[in-house]
């Protein structure tokens, strides 16, 4: 039994060594001893705990508002309406707000994840095979440019490319003899445009991560394959790609964890509040943002947010359980 009377150097001695210590007393002394011995740990941890409590856990209490008809003037005392907000969101089955938002959010994210990763892996593989180092470094740097620029600028770029009067594409159309096309009045094209823009923006970053993984593969494996007569295609197929698998899995799992959360910045700056395009481009996050800043229907927005969080949690846990069964090493928890 460790003797707390004789702790070294901490100067806190128990003055009554003769008191009979009950088990509870011993445990409490142990906890406080730990507190005292590692005082600095706990102090240094305060910002972290306070931060997450205030900005993450406290808001969870606000989810209560999903069940109210929130009124700014009444605040906490807004009328309780039970599941009315959810009724409104779910009304209409396949036509419901919830279904449209969920479908958009999921489909866009799946496209981002799948296509984005494919492009990034392809880029990383190609970059590695380049022989001129300068060309590779320069290309890599250039590909990073979209990542650093803000979404507001991206929105501006998209507008300059696609608007009816001055857009680059419309000018190309007219100079080739075609009619102008009003992109901003045609919902169908935006899924493609948005996915392309998202890939364009994330390419530099993702490529670098995969490139880092690839660089970690031992050169001698490639040399052995070369000596055995393997072509570049074969070397990539049988060495690079399989060895990238763990990285891909981790990244995809992380991404799936966030699949119910959209790239709000991207959607809002490109589409904004354009009612015409909402059917094809509204995701849960933009709907919630609108309900806060445009419609002031906070109860509905909170309800949508609650739906989003629960769905997301269930999804992550489920996916992780599946991955665990299949390939235990690579699961998240």
């Amino acid at each position: 039994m460790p003797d707390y009377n004789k702790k070294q150097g901490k100067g806190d001695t128990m003055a009554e060594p003769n008191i009979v210590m009950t088990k509870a007393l011993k445990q409490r002394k142990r906890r406080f001893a730990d507190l005292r011995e590692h005082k600095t740990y706990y102090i240094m941890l305060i910002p972290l705990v306070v931060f997450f409590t205030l900005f993450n856990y406290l808001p969870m209490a606000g989810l209560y508002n999903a069940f109210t008809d929130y009124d700014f003037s009444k605040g906490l005392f807004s009328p309780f309406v039970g599941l009315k907000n959810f009724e409104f969101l779910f009304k209409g089955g396949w036509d419901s707000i919830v279904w449209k938002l969920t479908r958009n959010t999921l489909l866009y994210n799946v496209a981002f994840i799948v296509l984005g990763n494919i492009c990034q892996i392809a880029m990383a593989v190609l970059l590695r095979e380049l022989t001129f180092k300068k060309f590779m470094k320069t290309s890599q740097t250039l590909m990073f440019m979209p990542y650093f620029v803000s979404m507001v600028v991206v929105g501006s770029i998209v507008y300059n490319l696609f608007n009816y009067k001055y857009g680059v594409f419309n000018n190309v159309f007219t100079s080739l003899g075609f009619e102008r096309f009003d992109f901003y009045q045609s919902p169908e094209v935006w899924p493609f445009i948005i996915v392309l823009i998202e890939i364009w923006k994330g390419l530099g970053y993702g490529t670098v991560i995969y490139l880092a993984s690839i660089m970690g593969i031992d050169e001698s494996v490639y040399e052995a394959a070369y000596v055995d007569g393997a072509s570049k295609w074969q070397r990539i197929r049988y060495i690079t790609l399989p060895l990238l698998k763990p990285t891909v899995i981790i990244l995809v799992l992380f991404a799936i964890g966030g699949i119910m959360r959209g790239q709000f910045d991207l959607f809002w700056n490109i589409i904004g509040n354009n009612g015409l395009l909402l059917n094809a481009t509204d995701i849960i996050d933009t709907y919630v943002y609108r309900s806060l800043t445009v419609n002031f229907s906070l109860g509905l927005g909170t309800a949508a947010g609650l739906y989003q969080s629960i769905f997301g949690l269930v999804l992550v846990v489920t996916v992780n359980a599946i991955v665990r069964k299949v390939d235990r090493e690579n699961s998240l928890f």
Partner: protein
Amino acid sequence: MAQLAATSDKKKLKVDASSKIFDVMAVVIVGLVALICVAPFILMLSGSLSDESKIVVNGYSLLPQDFTLDAYKIVFTTLGGEIGRAYLVTIYVTVLGTLLGLLTTSMSGFILSRPDFKHRDKVAFFIYFTTLFSGGLIPTYLVVANVLHLNHTLWAIILPGMLSPFNVFLFRNYVKSIPNSLMESARIDGAGDFRIYWQIVLPLSKPVSATIGLFLGLGYWNNWFGYSLYLISDQEKWGLQYLLYRMLSRVTDAVRDAQIVVDQLPSETMKLATTMLVTGPIILLYPYMQRHFVSGLIVGGVKG
């Protein structure tokens, strides 16, 4: 013997042919993609240096049409003050936020890496859980605005962005790679936990601190969302990107929704000039910054 040599030579030739094609393809594809990444910015830059009437007729091009600095001149005279102030606000927010963020993240990551910290798994889960479930935008807004009363102040931007689970874990993993012996010997020499953190861990964790600092700084610099929620009516506290957003949407909303062109709204080249002014520094600086992104990520371990 000669036959064997012949076949292996043939094999080598085959490999070289398809590999050569591959090499050429790689250069072409990579080059194209790199150009596509940069093209929009070149178009914007040249547009901002072009004559408005030419742009209206011909649209944008890679080279300026009728090179002129008029757009910039107008922007400087009409919006110069606003842009200058927004720069100051953004620099203030970015510097303060990044420093506070680095301080808190490194402290937290350090503690979570200490093997003798009994509760580190519980705290790690406490942080991690927030990535699985959250209250969402509106409850968070209500807390920041109504409970903490941070709206109309820049703290509403600075504070919520300081910490993130990803950064904390990144730092923790990096600290784990610092040899224990260093810290043990400091302990034996009588150093307390904070001194170990301050004098050993911090100096040694420069790579990952650079990465995290970059992430934080970039996030603060490009933030427009926070301003749109909490500072919407405090024009003198607007950050750069939000100022740009307000400027641009005045025009584009009108055009998008109703096909109206109003005389007094900023012209196309003005919008481009403003955009270039707002984003210019980032474009000039980012090549130097991207190196640190990579190295810190690698060393800190992607497999968080």
